[in-house]
């Protein structure tokens, strides 16, 4: 430390300026994605809601949600609600399709919600329902226009006999990702009546692999992403301690901390990837073991995957940033208490602020 006040002051300023610059760069990245995605992103067409979630939550974690002014904020809220698949009064079977779609890729009219008509093959996708609710919370909406019974019926239709969930009623693969989505929706709507909680917990327990990570399903290889989904689901269901023994929890914590190289890998003997700083970091946080992480190495790795000019983060150094890794990279940084980033709720994967907003409105619906 310098003895001269002026010197140490200017050092502090320099550091601060640099950090502000970094924040701005990422704010620009998410703002850009919020408006328009390049042609290479065409394969995200059906999942636009998830991209919206990464952008909004990214700006929130950057403490820069204010770049979206009130007008734009309510426009976005309107767009989200326009993706709500609502029951058609004349079609009983339409209830099980309810929830949210990822975009209007089937050509459903934007104002269909005014007097909802069911369109052929138009149905919700569980990941879109989950991210739509999260987006609304981030934007400070009170969820008053959510058709709660319909959304819940839609979720109920997706649970499988083994406890896992599909993504759509049109049938799809079923795995831990969608278990997590179902748990988030039930938690946010404060209603567990449609999820068979013990069957779900059973599925999660059966997916615990011999090395004490969780796979996407029973007998599948343990993986950072599915381990996060499994543990977060148990936490949201308030079933962690009743499903896993203390010894198992200890071993899961160990499996997680063994994933740190500099950043985190998703499976043993794989390279580090930015997103696992969140998937594994958040799991350790939920299990009360985040202080085991070597933060310095972790931060160094995440920053090495930063898009130098574009902002955002990619999975590996010197790759193209994408919205998922950009958001999860930020969350990984936030879990290290990185300055200028807001703290996040590990099980819900939104800012603490948004999670608190949820608590404040949870009694109202």
């Amino acid at each position, binding site marked *: 430390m310098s003895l001269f006040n002026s010197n140490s002051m200017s050092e502090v300023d320099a550091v601060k300026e640099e950090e502000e610059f970094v924040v701005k760069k990422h704010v620009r990245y998410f703002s850009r*994605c*919020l*408006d*328009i*995605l*390049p*042609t*290479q992103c*065409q*394969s*995200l*067409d*059906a*999942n*636009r809601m998830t991209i*919206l979630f990464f952008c909004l939550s990214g700006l929130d974690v950057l403490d820069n949600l204010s770049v979206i002014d009130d007008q*734009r904020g309510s*426009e*976005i809220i*309107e*767009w989200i609600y*326009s993706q709500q698949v609502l029951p058609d009064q004349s079609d009983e079977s339409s209830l099980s399709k309810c929830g949210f779609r990822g*975009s*209007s*890729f*089937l*050509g*459903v*009219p*934007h*104002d269909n919600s005014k007097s909802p008509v069911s*369109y*052929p*093959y138009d149905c919700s996708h569980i990941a879109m329902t989950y991210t739509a609710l999260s987006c609304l919370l981030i934007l400070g909406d009170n969820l008053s226009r959510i058709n709660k019974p319909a959304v819940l019926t839609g979720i109920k239709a997706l649970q499988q006999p083994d406890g896992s969930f599909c993504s*759509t009623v*049109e049938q*799809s*693969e079923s795995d831990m990702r969608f278990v997590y989505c179902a748990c988030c929706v039930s938690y946010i709507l404060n209603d567990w009546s449609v999820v068979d909680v013990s069957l779900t917990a059973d599925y999660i327990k059966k997916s615990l*692999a*011999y*090395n004490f990570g969780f796979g996407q*399903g029973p*007998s*599948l*290889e*343990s993986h950072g992403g599915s381990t996060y989904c499994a543990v977060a689901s148990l936490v949201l269901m308030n079933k962690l301690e009743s499903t896993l023994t203390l010894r198992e929890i200890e071993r899961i914590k*160990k499996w997680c*901390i*063994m994933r*740190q*190289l*500099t950043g985190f890998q998703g*499976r*043993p*003997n*794989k390279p580090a990837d930015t997103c696992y700083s969140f998937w594994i970091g958040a799991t350790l946080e939920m299990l009360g*073991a985040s202080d*085991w*992480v*070597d933060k310095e190495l972790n931060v160094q790795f995440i920053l090495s995957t930063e898009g130098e000019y574009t902002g955002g983060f990619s999975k590996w150094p010197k790759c193209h940033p994408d919205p998922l890794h950009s958001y999860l990279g930020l969350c990984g940084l936030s879990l290290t208490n990185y300055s200028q980033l807001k703290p996040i709720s590990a099980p819900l994967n939104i800012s603490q602020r948004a999670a608190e907003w949820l608590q404040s409105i949870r009694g109202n619906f």
Partner: protein
Amino acid sequence: MSEGDESNSDEQGYVYYRDRPNWKDIEPIPQDDGPNPVVQIAYTDKFKDVYDYLRAVIRKGEKTERVLELTMDAIECNPANYTVWHYRREVLQELKKDLKSELEFAEETVLNEPKNYQVWYHRQKLVEWSNDPSRELYLTAEVFKDDSKNYHAWQHRQWTIRTYGLWSNELEFVDGLLKEDFRNNSAWNQRYFVIINTTGYTEEVVKNEVKYVIDFIKVAPNNESAWNYLTGILKGGRISDHEPVLKLIDSLRSQHVPSPFLLSTMIDVYEEEVANGKKESLEKAVKICEELGSKIDPVRKRYWEYTSRRLISAYGPLDST
């Protein structure tokens, strides 16, 4: 911008559906994103053309040959659109199509897009419908040639083996993969999957498997996957009951092999001993924790410190010497 150039070259030779005489009867339906869309995508003209027509035929419920072709274009534009795949399956069923060429199409798409959830699911449905799993082991093995840890392919392979009882050659296949790359964690997981579902880990099998994995550990003592397999199959039993494991540990330790997995397993053995009343092993375990945190595995310094504290609080106090 380069994006535009790319999309133009993509579209070479493509005739827009709106210009095709045999599609004149269809009124295309554009996407209606409302007055204030968010996260728009800069679709190419081809993408818009294909999906405008796809929206129209899905709305009509048309299930014909030409729609089959259209869904092929739609899948090429966006293989992640699950509704397109679903609709394509309905058309296939409606037209009672021979599944052979569809299986070929799925195979080609799997090889081009091995990380696409939708095409793997499509493949699974086709195998179910045709009740013909004969090509699945070959196909997944092809995918492993490029990426031996592809999660989708392993998931598909497990589903095939379990559904159709194709267990008989799998251990041999896994053995081949492990000899190619003993760090392939997916292959170790598959080994566990096969054994637990066939012979089970009987005393005899565990004995053989311990021998099998020890040979791999000797070659590469820093291979976490092999150590995890070793401790995984002993789950429930005690490591110290397995003479060959103790011998392995002694031999690696005497060579000062700096493997965190070796040392971690030593801690487990010491913990078993302490729990069995051998008090002096506690201090040994604590010393190993120190060695790990300060020298062998400093990334996890705090974890090893925690482990040391956990052991002391469970079995301590340490006999002060």
